[in-house]
């Protein structure tokens, strides 16, 4: 018997510069649930897509950094508001992607929303916590202020498709950087849905760019790109790690690693003590020190 209504399925696309292109390469790959069922086709982004994303991020970086801290905080909080409105959709997608029971998926999504709120509040406080006025031994006024490092490449956690992603994405954004995210390769769909939330939020196009695809293909390109200032290597597969860091060395990129002994699969993203860290914001900040003489 034919169903009453054929459901309308979503095309999962890339998110670059505020737009939703398919890959210029026309490629895709099949995303499977934990039980092996095919969930959807995701875009298999190309090197060209990645370069486009970096260009979009660079263009968006300075205007985003120039926003007032309070404004950045409100923009991040708004992401939480919009995610709350699409909570059920995220729960269903996270459950399918990660093979979680509904209750557990609800907890994960709620925590992802709350994490945006936690990091949003840091926007206008981090400079006060990390900055300093320095009592130099000479007649100068001397102070140190944090500034965003610029464009951050994020290789998202592989296991935690939404909460892990949000926990690594919010810190560089609240710090005032623009980012290019390589979503979890095996569980990319919640990231794409997040990009749809971002597109209707107040986060300016280009500040967050999200690509889906094969890490082996994309991570080295991201690590080698000279217009990427910093790199989050959290989700880099173990067999690519040395290669990625060698590439990052070429133009002295800042890299942020998982702490020694911490694995992607075992990390407890639900633990606020572990995943809500001002150090994770500091990792994407440069410290600028300014001197001026004191005189009449």
């Amino acid at each position, binding site marked *: 018997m034919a169903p009453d209504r054929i459901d309308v399925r979503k095309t999962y696309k890339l998110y670059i510069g505020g737009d939703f292109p398919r890959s210029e390469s026309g490629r895709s790959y099949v995303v499977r649930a934990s039980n092996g069922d095919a969930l959807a086709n995701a875009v298999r982004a190309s090197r060209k897509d990645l370069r486009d994303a970096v260009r979009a991020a660079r263009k968006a970086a300075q205007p985003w950094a120039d926003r007032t801290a309070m404004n950045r905080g409100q923009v991040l909080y708004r992401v939480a508001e919009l995610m709350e409105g699409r909570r059920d959709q995220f729960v269903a997608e996270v459950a399918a992607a990660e093979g979680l029971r509904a209750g557990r998926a609800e907890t994960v999504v709620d925590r992802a929303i709350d994490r945006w709120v936690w990091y949003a509040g840091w926007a206008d406080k981090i400079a006060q*916590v990390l900055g300093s006025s320095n009592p130099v031994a000479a007649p100068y006024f*001397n102070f140190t202020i944090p500034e965003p490092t610029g464009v951050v490449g994020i290789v998202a956690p592989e296991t935690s498709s939404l909460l892990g992603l949000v926990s690594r994405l919010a810190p560089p954004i609240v710090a005032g950087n623009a980012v290019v995210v390589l979503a979890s390769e095996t569980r990319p769909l919640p990231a794409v849905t997040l990009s749809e939330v971002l597109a209707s939020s107040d986060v300016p196009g280009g500040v967050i760019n999200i690509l889906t695809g094969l890490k082996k293909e994309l991570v080295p390109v991201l690590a080698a790109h000279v217009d990427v200032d910093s790199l989050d290597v959290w989700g880099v597969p173990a067999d690519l790690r040395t290669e990625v860091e060698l590439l990052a060395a070429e133009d*002295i990129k800042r890299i942020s690693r998982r702490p020694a002994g911490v694995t992607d699969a075992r990390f407890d993203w639900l633990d606020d003590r572990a995943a809500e860290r001002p150090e994770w914001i500091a990792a994407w900040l440069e*410290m600028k020190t300014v001197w001026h003489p004191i005189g009449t």
Partner: protein
Amino acid sequence: MTAMATKTPTVPAATNGAVSRVEHAPASWGLGDGAAIPWDYAPAPESREIVTIKEQYGLFIGGKDVVASDGQTFATVNPATEEPLAQVARGTAADMDKAVRAARSSFRRTWSRLSGKERAKYLFRIARLLQERSREFAVLESMDSGKPIKESRDVDVPLAAAHFWYYAGWADKLDYAFPGRVARPLGVAAQVIPWNFPLLMLAWKIAPALAAGNTVVLKPASTTPLSALLFADVCRQADLPPGVVNIVPGPGEVGMALISNPGVDKVAFTGSTEIGRKIFQGVAGSDKALTLELGGKAANIVFDDAPLDQAVEGIVNGIYFNQGEVCCAGSRLLAQESIVEPLIEKLKDRLSTIRVGDPLDKNTDVGAINSRSQLEKITELVAAGRAEGAEMYQPACDLPERGYFFRPTLFTNVAQSHRIAREEIFGPVLSVLTFRTPEEAVEKANNTPYGLSAGIWTDKGSRILHMVKRMKAGVVWANTFNRFDPTSPFGGYKESGFGREGGMHGLHAYVRLEDR
């Protein structure tokens, strides 16, 4: 003129090859025309009696003075006379391994078990000893590195002592530096330092590392090992537990052996971006923490409303301080077009009063270049500047017959594409470029892969803060240049490295933060 000076001003032979557009100011009176003022100074040499330089120096490992594993030594030379000062044990990879083991053992057995309060007192002792022996360090530093005694006495040594003093106080207050977290030491820190500020860089590296509870293996530069080895004596006098500080001199490959040693938890390097990249590659894929303080090509931006006489002093200090062998040197002068002519005139006048010569003479402003190879590098880049069409000016000062000396040099008509505007020269060579608007100044200043420092000269406060915000540089000096202080974080953006040294931020590089 100093006792060492000759009476015939000559351009160093190697610069003679290129276009002959050298403008030599005549040695006559004349203000405003860039001519030399023939003020003569009687020699005022600092006595070298205060320091006893041994014929042989060993490695400092586990609190002991030991020979290299293969018995090899190398000579360290006084760059002002080209005479060897001493023979120094040349560390090997095996020695580095021994030093790392010594550091590990003292980390486990003593240093990490000591309370912050007790660690602090050792660091205070070291600060005091450096102050007590300051003249000895200053003279030795000038002899081994070529820097003027004025600078080693008034800048390097007091700042080195101040660094130990500052970080001593942090050792028992780490909880207040990292609220909400427990700061744990990383373990054994491998530290590789350059030859331009040998003792000061040692202090920048060792003081925060020890304060945070780490132990260290330090490799001083191969041309300037002596102040580090004298520091080993300070560690002994302070009764610092053996193995907390280990000092192993040697060439670059020994530094690479140190940073790649699996027993190392943390790598800190100051030096060129080229070597920094190799160090980064050397730790790639490991769990070693890394901080890099690398090269620079700083813009010193002078706006038309700047007090020009003060700016000239700042420009001179910015590029001729320590023979320009400074990573944060203001090597690119960006002058607003409307004032470029009077500024250059004043600058040329000022250059003619700079005294180049014997580093131990208390009147000397610019001493010897650190090594023959560095002199060759400077000479080569200056020749490239002339070949590419920039106009060179050098004051008519006399250079000593022996030693590695180079005249303070000024290039005008420099294009951004010229090598002298792009590459770090690490010598007393200033390239002058011009701009019209603040936006153009920002664009030119940031048009470099480096991002260590910048200077801004203007009377307008709001413009200073605007420029500060736009400069991609870790340190911005406004209406001053080349100021340093232990409380003031220092370090670069972009390819000038990452991590900060100095201040509370300098502690970050040496701790692991754990949840409370």
